[in-house]
């Protein structure tokens, strides 16, 4: 799995590409922690994320918790159907903000920061 980062002003966008399985989870967690350290808000754009397992869900859960305790907005967007299904079945899409696209995630974060 590869991870790209983009900046939208104060918002950091993390873009995981490929498969987030057990083997990729540790590196993804490190990437997220680094991104969180310098961000006032974090969006994980999942448009290029093909697969996620419970090992990957754990990283999203930890990132959501860290963001919440630091008082920083955190959202996911653009989940592909196979990934969306895992988030829905696990109930994670009820505890983590999930938007259809990046614009929706950005709009919500900007609204909250006003």
């Amino acid at each position, binding site marked *: 799995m590869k991870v790209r980062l983009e900046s939208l002003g104060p918002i950091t966008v993390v873009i995981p590409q490929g498969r987030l399985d057990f083997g990729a989870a540790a590196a993804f967690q490190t990437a997220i922690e680094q991104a969180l350290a310098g961000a006032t808000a974090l969006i994980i754009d999942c448009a290029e994320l093909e697969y996620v397992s419970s090992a990957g869900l754990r990283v999203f859960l930890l990132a959501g918790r860290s963001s919440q305790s630091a008082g920083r907005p955190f959202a996911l967007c653009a989940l592909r159907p196979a990934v969306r299904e895992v988030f829905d079945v696990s109930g*994670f899409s009820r505890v983590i903000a999930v938007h259809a696209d990046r614009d929706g995630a950005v709009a919500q974060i900007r609204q909250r920061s006003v």
Partner: protein
Amino acid sequence: MRRRTTVPSDAAQLAVVTQFLQEFWRAAELPPAEARTFELALEEIFMNVVMHGSPAGHEPRIEVSLEFCDGKMILTVEDDGPPFDPLSLPPPDVTASLEERRVGGLGVFLVRQMMDDVSYRRTGKRNRLRSCKRIAPPATSAERMKH
């Protein structure tokens, strides 16, 4: 169609068994959209044996069998580790808040939700977890030509 492979109980083998599944999928001409569900089931069940069913000093062998028959896909994972029924674990609370959510047991929960049927059996010195799901029949060559 039926295939099987055996690997040591080692996290590094996840990539090997995943590739085995993907090759089976292509050879059987099964719909790619359904592959992810089985990749997920395989990862969760396989990693469960690696993480929880492999006591120090004993590295079990894990056998993965795949069978597609009469529109039904069957994944069977067997290991020669100590008796362990992952289906006996309590289900996670999927309605808990972000703070209270736990990941333990989530993998097996996902498999149970996404498969039609999952069953455990201890036979001799082996654990056997069988997952199956009816999947849409593969497109015929003629149908594929239209796309």
